[in-house]
């Protein structure tokens, strides 16, 4: 792979080839960017992915349907609820299973809290990559509270393994609703403080406005999804446009990039769309907690899950864009094929197209603004 990339780069005379990773403080996990630079200016940057490939799709064919759920956590360990949910929905479609409303609501609550936790890391590390350490720690502080809530809900702080085929693993613990509402009251004020601390800081804005612009047609062409796509001004969100689970019952806005301080689709738009999405997630969690229906939180699922031969597809709006599962059953207890499509993988593709002409520091901003997570790219 490295040799293939090296063939595309040239370093004769003025240019220098730089291995930007895999051990580099801002490659967000394990990614390598092979960069051809002329001084500080980048001629070409090509991502070299695969350092965290763990055969997660193949494992889906080796373990039974319920047994694969904890493995899905590892697809995106920063926001582990979404791979849980996507897989659960895919298998439920395969089984033609009706999920009780309370479980749907609990899925929405857990996923939106998870989105908050994931975006906190994203905007925090973005600030850190631009050189400000404090906002990142403020983000981690808030995430810590979300992690506490998640721990109370499902016993884990990172890899939740909360969703089940046919519902969720546990009902809400006692007092959880009030704790969450208290956190959200605090969190809404935190977002205002965060904007004051970093989002509209003059130095921060100067670093991100008009940098690494991804025009809407290019974003669509490269298959960007989620906040990266919406940052380019494309108004598309699976929660609204292809509704699933409990989302049709909630009222929320879909923030899109408007060129808040510069051009539509610049690094700041992708950053700020995430900030705005956190506020929307907070609204969704509030609505869901208020309208939480009573009843079962788990459907009647046969002990041995053996779907009819066939195939099913699910698409959920993850924190990093569209997460799609394609599951094929051959009538046995193990899936014949599990395929996962993730937002980070397509986001990585666009680096090649956007990077020429950027400064080295802008490349860091571009990577941070795409909010990739290494195992989601490699799986």
């Amino acid at each position, binding site marked *: 792979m490295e040799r293939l990339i090296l063939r595309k780069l040239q370093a004769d005379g003025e240019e220098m080839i730089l291995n930007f990773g895999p051990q580099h403080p801002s490659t967000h996990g394990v990614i390598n960017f092979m960069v051809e630079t002329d001084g500080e200016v980048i001629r070409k940057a090509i991502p070299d992915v695969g350092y965290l490939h763990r055969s997660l799709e193949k494992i889906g064919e080796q373990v039974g349907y319920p047994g694969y759920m904890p493995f899905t956590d590892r697809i995106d360990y920063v926001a582990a609820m979404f791979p849980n949910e996507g897989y659960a929905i895919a298998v439920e479609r395969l089984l033609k299973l009706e999920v009780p409303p309370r479980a749907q609501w609990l899925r929405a609550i857990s996923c939106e809290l998870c989105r908050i936790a994931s975006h906190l890391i994203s905007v925090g590390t973005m600030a850190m990559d631009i050189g400000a350490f404090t906002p990142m*720690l403020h983000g981690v502080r808030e995430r*810590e509270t979300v992690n506490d809530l998640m721990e109370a809900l499902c016993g884990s702080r990172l890899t939740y393994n909360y969703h089940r085929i046919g519902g969720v693993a546990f009902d809400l613990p006692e007092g959880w609703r009030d704790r969450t509402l208290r956190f959200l009251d605090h969190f809404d004020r935190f977002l205002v403080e965060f904007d004051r601390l970093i989002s509209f800081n003059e130095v921060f804005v100067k670093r991100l406005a008009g940098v690494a612009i991804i025009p809407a047609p290019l974003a669509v062409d490269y298959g960007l999804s989620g906040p990266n796509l919406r940052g380019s001004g494309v108004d598309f969100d699976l929660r609204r446009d292809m509704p699933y689970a409990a989302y049709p019952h909630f009222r929320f806005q879909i923030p899109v990039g408007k060129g808040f301080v510069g051009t539509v689709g610049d690094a700041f738009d992708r950053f700020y769309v995430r900030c705005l999405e956190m506020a929307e997630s907070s609204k969704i969690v509030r609505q869901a907690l208020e309208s939480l229906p009573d009843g079962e939180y788990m459907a009647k699922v046969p002990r041995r899950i053996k779907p009819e031969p066939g195939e099913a597809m699910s698409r959920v709006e993850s924190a990093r864009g569209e997460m799609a599962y394609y599951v094929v059953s051959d009538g046995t207890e193990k899936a014949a094929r599990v395929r996962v499509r993730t937002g980070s993988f397509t986001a990585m593709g666009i680096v090649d197209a956007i990077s020429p002409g950027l400064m080295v520091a802008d490349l860091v901003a571009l990577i941070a603004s795409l909010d990739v997570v290494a195992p989601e790219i490699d799986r």
Partner: protein
Amino acid sequence: MNQPAALPGAPGAPTSPAARRRARAVLGLTLAVGVGLPGLLFGLIVALTPLRTVVPAGWSEGQVFLLHAVGLAVLAVVLVTFGAVVSGITVWWEMRVFARMSSRVGYNRVGAGGFLQWVADAVKLLLKEDLVPADADAVLFRAAPYFVIVGFALTFVVLPFGESLVAADLNVGVLYVLSVTALVVVGILIAGWSSNSKWSLFGGMRSAAQVISYEIPAGLAAMVPVLMAGTLSMQDMIRAQGAWPWEWNVFTNPFALVAFVVFFIAQLAEGNRTPFDLPEAESELVAGYLSEYSSFRFAIYFLVEFGNLWVMSAIAVTLFLGGWQVPFVGPEVYAAARGAPGSIPGAGWWGLQVLSMVVFVVKTLAVLNLIVWIRWTLPRIRVDQMMSLCWKYLVPFAFACFVGTLFWQLLVTAAPWAARATGYALTAGFLVTAFFFLRLTLRNVSAAGDRVDLTNW
């Protein structure tokens, strides 16, 4: 030590007699290092710096020379040690401030309040292997830290501490400081080049471009107080200012106020401090020119980086903020307390010296703290923005201040009340700004509402 050493009597303080004894011992050690060591160093500076002016009656010329030579040699050791200790304590202070700013506890394991962490870090670094990377230019790689430490240590020659507390009051003081600090960039450039690492090379190049560019606005801005005082000597420049804020250079001349801001920004850039920490930008260049350094050589870079904060602050205080001037204590008071020239001065004079040193140290620490706040608040600017800020804004502003001060001095010579009136007006303006800033901060704090519960930490 896997438990933080809580102070005796504090919540969570150990209860068993043995643990209490240990906590008391830790507190004692912390106080010894935290108060005793700087106290000893300050005491030696107070005792040794005025030695040059003392000529004991009846001593031959050779004996007096020997006395002064030995005194200066000891003073040199004291000042370098002071630089090291001050940089260590600055690290601790910075980490504690940063921890509070980011809702964390910060250093709290080694010593009371984690104070001895810098000692532990230094010992750890000295015990590590001193690595030289393969294919690095070994000679230059090993030599680079010496340029850096020499450039740092030499500034202490003219750095004032009090009315008579300066190692050597050179008549070219400001020029001397500007020139010896340039040695640091030589060391950084050598480090960047000799490490045989692309990150180091990037860091070294950025640093060279940055420090050399920002020396121009810094030098021009430093000329403003030089024009106002009519001397290059650090001590005489302080003597030309008064003790009260409206008598400081920064407020008596509107151009000097702008020059102070330019100078402060340029000093941040020269010290590679945020928002100008591009040469060692972690998220971009791993550790910049430091990437390949380890052990003792890394410790030297670290020491200089933090020790420079003191130097930067002390120079800013000297040039613009009235230095060691104590209210109601004019030169005649010092002269009266001094007694006959050459004799050993009386206790009153020593007391005045200590007082002036306290004033100077407090001002310096205030500026130092400001630099720490800035570091943990602002992001980093980009390399092209760094260059355009310097050449498009700071250099023209500094030059305009320089020319403006020339005319201002003509005005002040014709009408001395102008300087006084400006002093009052600008001081009042500063106080009003500070008031509104404080009010805004308090409003923001209350708008942020309740803090996250920290008790489960």
